[in-house]
């Protein structure tokens, strides 16, 4: 008979309660947001009871205002600079065997290939062997067993290029670096929750709420060359006065340690090609770095003249490390040793690389929405949702009477559940997302309508109200399932297609379908059963 076990009743109402509790913070959006900010900064958090959930629906850029940028990283830029840096190494290595290979000259070639001509064709095999000797094994999982450069010969001409595995490793590193730099730069302005995400193989999506124009962000990201190598004049206290052409900078990790530095840098981070965590001869964590051609020359000359003195690696006006030059460092690559842990050396490598963008960025898409426009959209959406919801509620009440009221309660619960789940999964609400919710309000009653209409039909064959209700639910189910699965398929495809706002729409539409089926099948039914078991009406009107 028409009944729902107490256990299921309890489960249904528990789900509803949890869902509504999760949705609750959104009614006090500003208050909870302030509370969450306070919690994340470790301040005293008051204004929201800590036992209540405090997850909020994220507002999309079109509602909150801000900048959205899609940048493409020109990863092949890096191949060219690696090739440029490889050339002196190759030249020096071959120069040592001048008797066999003759003179070495670099030929014109595409940027990512190094073409070298030797004057003694007979020495080509030996030359190739020497250059191959410069190759380093690749340490990534996929590239295991291969080396970073490939050498081929054709007569007296050697062609040196990066292996595919190395190119992939370089791409990955470049992307990682670019992400890191962009994140650091944007974090400096300290806006709330910027999104910096890798998209596909070579793209970065940047979303910064509350920014007036995308130009600000581009400028911010473009700010480079914050990394310098400077001569250390001596240690200092915070209050020391630097001489002419000198500056005082603090150490990044040691409190109260300052250095007096020559303010003209020896080399800047713009000339750094690469930095990798590594180990020194004694097996202690260290960082390998490599300069481009001009950087290598400057650094080589400087180290030759200043053996035994200290120089400082400065990032954003803080001294990362101030090692002592042990020996002349020609060829542009060197190693920074210090009291590093493995983690510190990894971070330092990232920081060193983060000095300048490794490759140029091309902005493929820029969208800026003003905060006022976003607020207008929220207001309009809210108003429309309220009016639309009210119209639907009145319409349902007029059509189905008491059952319509049950459906309306389910509809309101449904709205609460949508917000509850959106908050729980941290989904982003966009303007089309609001439209999706309004649309859901209209469509959510569909499952109820299907059931109610079916109950009406079953009542005609006069099996008594309880049986009619039961049959109504039973027989409407297949239509409800089929109809909603097809809609869910389209919501899934929308999500897959969508970027930003459209994806927000897909999320609310998809969630709305799931919650509306839940509320129609379980919540309305539970209400009807409760009512029915209490009143035991002889006849019902649907």
């Amino acid at each position, binding site marked *: 008979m028409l009944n729902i076990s107490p256990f299921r009743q309890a489960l249904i109402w528990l789900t509803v309660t949890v869902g509504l509790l999760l949705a609750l913070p959104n009614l006090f959006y500003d208050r909870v947001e302030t509370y969450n900010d306070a919690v994340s900064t470790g301040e005293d958090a008051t204004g929201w009871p800590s036992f209540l959930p405090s997850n909020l629906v994220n507002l999309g850029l079109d509602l909150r205002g801000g900048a959205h940028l899609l940048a493409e990283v020109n990863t092949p830029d890096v191949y060219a600079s690696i090739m440029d840096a490889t050339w002196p190494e190759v030249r020096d290595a071959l120069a040592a065997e001048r008797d066999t290979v003759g003179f070495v000259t670099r030929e014109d070639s595409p940027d990512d290939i190094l073409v070298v001509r030797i004057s003694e064709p007979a020495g080509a095999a030996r030359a190739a062997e020497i250059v191959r000797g410069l190759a380093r094994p690749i340490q990534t999982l996929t590239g295991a067993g291969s080396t970073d450069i490939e050498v081929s010969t054709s007569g007296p001409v050697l062609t040196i290029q990066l292996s595919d595995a190395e190119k992939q490793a370089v791409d990955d590193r470049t992307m990682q670096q670019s992400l890191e730099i962009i994140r650091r730069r944007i974090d400096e302005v300290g806006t709330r929750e910027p999104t910096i995400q890798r998209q596909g193989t070579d793209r970065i999506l940047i979303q910064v709420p509350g920014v007036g124009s995308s130009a600000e962000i581009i400028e911010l990201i473009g700010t480079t060359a914050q990394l310098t190598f400077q001569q250390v004049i001596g240690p200092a206290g915070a209050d020391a006065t630097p001489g002419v052409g000198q500056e005082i900078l603090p150490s990044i990790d040691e409190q109260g340690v300052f250095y007096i530095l020559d303010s003209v840098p020896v080399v800047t981070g713009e000339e750094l090609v690469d930095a990798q965590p590594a180990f020194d001869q004694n097996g202690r964590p260290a960082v390998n770095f490599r300069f481009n051609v001009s950087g290598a020359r400057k650094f080589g000359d400087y180290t030759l003249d200043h053996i035994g003195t200290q120089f400082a690696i400065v990032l954003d006006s803080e001294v990362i490390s101030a090692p002592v030059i042990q020996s002349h460092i020609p060829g542009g690559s060197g190693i920074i040793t210090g009291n590093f842990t493995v983690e510190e050396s990894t971070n330092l490598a990232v920081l060193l690389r983060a000095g300048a963008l490794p490759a140029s960025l091309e902005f493929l898409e820029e969208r800026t929405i003003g905060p006022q426009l976003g607020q207008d959209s929220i207001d309009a959406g809210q108003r*429309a949702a309220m009016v639309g919801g009210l119209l639907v509620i009145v*319409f349902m009440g007029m059509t189905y009477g008491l059952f319509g009221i049950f459906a309306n309660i389910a509809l309101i619960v449904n709205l609460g559940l949508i917000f509850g789940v959106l908050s729980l999964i941290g989904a982003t609400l966009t303007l089309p997302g609001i*439209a999706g919710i*309004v649309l859901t309000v209209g*469509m959510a009653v569909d499952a109820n309508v299907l059931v109610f209409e079916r109950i009406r039909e079953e009542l005609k064959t006069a099996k008594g109200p309880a049986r009619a209700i039961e049959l109504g639910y039973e*027989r409407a189910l297949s239509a409800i399932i089929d109809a909603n699965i097809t809609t869910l398929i389209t919501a899934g*495809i*929308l999500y897959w297609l969508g970027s930003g706002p459209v994806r927000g729409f897909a999320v609310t539409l998809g969630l709305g379908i799931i919650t509306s089926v839940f509320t129609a099948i379980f919540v309305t039914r539970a209400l009807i059963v409760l009512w029915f078991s209490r009143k035991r009406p002889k006849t019902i009107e649907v």
Partner: protein
Amino acid sequence: MRMRLIPDDTNINFFKLASVTFGGSMVLLVLSIVAFMTFGLNYGIDFRGGTTIRTESTQPVDVSAYRTALESLELGDVSITEVFDPTFRADQFVASVRIQAQDDAESVAQSTIDSVRTALQAVDPEVDFTSVESVGPKVSGELIQSAIFAVIGALSAIIIYIWLRFEWQFAVGGIVALIHDIGLTIGLFSLLQIRFDLAIIAALLTIVGYSINDTVVVFDRVRENLRKYKVMPLVDVLNLSANETLARTMMTSGTTLLALVALLALGGDVIRGFVFAITWGIIVGTYSSIYVAKNVVLMLGVKRDWSKKNPATGGRYADIEDS
């Protein structure tokens, strides 16, 4: 006291005027294709690249003054339209400026936007840019591609699902109805030259979802009735099913349209095109599930022995002449 959109026991012959209803639909579909071929669509920057700037001012917009101011910048094709909306404040005047993709850049250079701002501020010092959106040709090309994939993907997924759950004739009927809905929507957008961007693709997919939802409810009843009335001619089964589900069809479309009309009137101009597309789509979608999908099923006929218990019952195929 209950309000009834549809009287309780309808017995409408939906096939009576098939030449007008189904035929008319097909004619409209052809006209939509013609409109699309002739006028094309007013593609937004999502699909053809370029920049859209939304300006806002406390002064009324003087479109021709804006145009004159921007002409000197030589930005190529520039279109300026004033935007009206009942939700605007009394002193809120909004215009939309669209600039074509510049040849030399993936995205519009900031300097271009700055020069537009300077030029417009010379006309109206109060003018402010509330949103600036630029899409480069590379991304717009990809967006077109993924939009086409999405629509085709959605249609294929649905056809497969209906095929699995029903018979192939139903799948064909459903798809013809969907093509009808999408076609008529694109036709209307082409005729009225409403901006067609990524959001409209989302609207099209929503229409697809809604319309198939409607169609499936009717099909579900057809399947049930085919089992129940094994000797009833197909045309009568289809009619009976449509009549039985008519109240539900009108009710759901009614509530959805109520919500959408509220959104259309009060939701602001930013999503008006999107909401308009969905509203229109729901009207044609409801129509197509009553007058298009079933007709296709009738033309193709349905195997009546799909329960495999009663192979001899009834005409195996409906005779189209009978309708």
